[in-house]
C-alpha cells in the first residue's frame, strides 16, 4: 500500500466495495435459485440418472459458493488488511497454520456423515423389529459393528 498514491488508495476502496457487494449479490441469487437443497440431496439410496445430475449440480453449486466466499476472504485479507504488503515471514506465519483446517474439515465432516449412517442403521433395525415380531430374536444376528453402536 505504501507505494500507492493517495488517489489510487481511494480508488482501491471503491473497487473493494463494488467487488464484495457484487459477489454477495451473486451468492444470494444462487442460494435462492438452489433453495437450500444442498445437503438434503446428498446420499440418495436409489440413484436414477436425474438424481445423479442433481447431485452433480449440488456439488458444483457448493464448490462455486465456497470459492466465491474464499475469494471475498482473500480480498479482505490482502487488500483491506494489507497482508500482501507484509514481509513473507509474517504472511506465512499467519497463513500456514490455517492449512490445519483442511484436515479438520475433512475429518469432522466425515465423522458427521458416519453418525448419520449409524442413526439410519439403528432406525432401520428398530422398524424391522416392530414390523416382524416373529423375528424378535433378530438382534442376535447383528454384526459386530452394529452391536458396538447399540451399546
Amino acid at each position, binding site marked *: 500500500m505504501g507505494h500507492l498514491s*493517495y488517489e489510487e*488508495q*481511494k480508488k482501491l*476502496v471503491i473497487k*473493494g*466495495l463494488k467487488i*464484495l*457487494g457484487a459477489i*454477495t*449479490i451473486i*451468492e*444470494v441469487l*444462487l*442460494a*435462492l435459485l438452489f*433453495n*437450500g*437443497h*444442498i*445437503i*438434503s*440431496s446428498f446420499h440418495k439410496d436409489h440413484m436414477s440418472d436425474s438424481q445423479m445430475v442433481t447431485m452433480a449440480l449440488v456439488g458444483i453449486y*457448493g464448490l462455486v*459458493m*465456497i470459492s466465491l*466466499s474464499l475469494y*471475498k*476472504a482473500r480480498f*479482505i*485479507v490482502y487488500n*483491506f*488488511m494489507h497482508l500482501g504488503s*507484509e*514481509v*513473507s*515471514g*509474517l504472511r506465512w*506465519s*499467519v497463513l500456514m*497454520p*490455517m492449512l490445519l*483446517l483442511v484436515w*479438520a*474439515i475433512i475429518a*469432522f*465432516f466425515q*465423522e*458427521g*456423515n458416519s*453418525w*448419520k449412517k449409524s*442413526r*439410519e442403521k439403528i432406525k432401520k433395525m428398530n422398524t424391522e423389529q416392530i414390523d416382524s415380531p416373529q423375528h424378535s430374536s433378530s438382534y442376535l444376528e447383528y454384526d459386530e459393528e452394529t452391536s458396538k453402536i447399540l451399546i
Partner: protein
Amino acid sequence: MSSEATAVHAHGHDTDEHLWDGGTPPFKASYGKLMMWYFLLTDAFTFAGFLIAYGALRFSSPIWPVPDVVFEKIPFFPEVKAPLVFVTFMTFVLIASSVTMVRAVQEGQRENKNGVVFWMFLTILGGATFLSCQAWEWKTLIVDEHTTIHTNPFSAHTEAGHFLEDAHGHPYEAGATAETFREGDGYLIHQDHETGEWIQRAYETESGTKGRLQFGPKAFGALFFFITGFHGFHVFSGVCFLLIIMLNAASGTYVKRKNGYEMVEKIGLYWHFVDLVWVFVFLVFYLL
C-alpha cells in the same frame, strides 16, 4: 555493524543473514501489530472450531432447516416473504463499515486527524446498525417463531406430498384444494396464538405415508444463537474499542505519537477480521 544492519533494514533486504541477530524487527511490524495478527489467527481457529462443529452436526442430520424459510422476514412488513433480503442488507452494512475503516486507516497514515475521526465515526455507525439488525433478527426468531436453543420448529420435507389439514390444524373442508409440498421444501411449525399449542399439520406423502410435521434437528437453534451470538459479541467489542480509539484520536493522543495512527490500523485489522468471519457465518447459515 549496527550501521550496516540499519542500512539493510532501510533497503528492505529481509534475506540478510543479520536479520535475526536482533536490533531490527525481522517482520518489519511493531509488537502491537504483530500480536494483533496472531490474536486474529487464534480467533480464526476458535470460529473455525464452531463452524466445523456446525458442519459435522449438519452432515449427521438427514434433514436441515431451509435458510430461505428461516430468514424470510423483514421489519415493518410482517406479511411479506422476502427470503434472505434482510440478512443481505446486514452483510452490506458490515462490508460498508469495513470500507469506511480502510478510509480511516488511510487518513491516519496521512496524519489527518479529522479524516480519521470522521471515517471511524461512520464505521461505528455501521457496527451499531449491524448489531441492531441482529437484535431484530433474534427477536423475530425467539419471540415470533419460538426458536430457542432447545426447540427448533424449522425443518424440511423429505418427500413430496400434500397436507390433510389447513394452516390452523383443522381438516380441509369438502371441495377445498389441499396444499402440496415438494421434497426439500422448508417449513415452520406455528404456535396457536391463543392456546400456545404447536400446530403439527397432518400430511400424506406421494408414497402413501401419513404423518404430522416433526420438529427439525434440535442442534440448529443452539448452533445459530451461539455462533451468530459469538460473532455479534465480536462486533460489540469492536464497536466499544472503535469508540475509545476514536475519542483518543479526537483528543489528539495519537498526534503526539507520530506513528501514522498505528492504533487505528490495529483496530482496523480487528474490524476487517470481524467482517471476514461474517463471510463464512453468512455462507454456512444463510446461503448453503
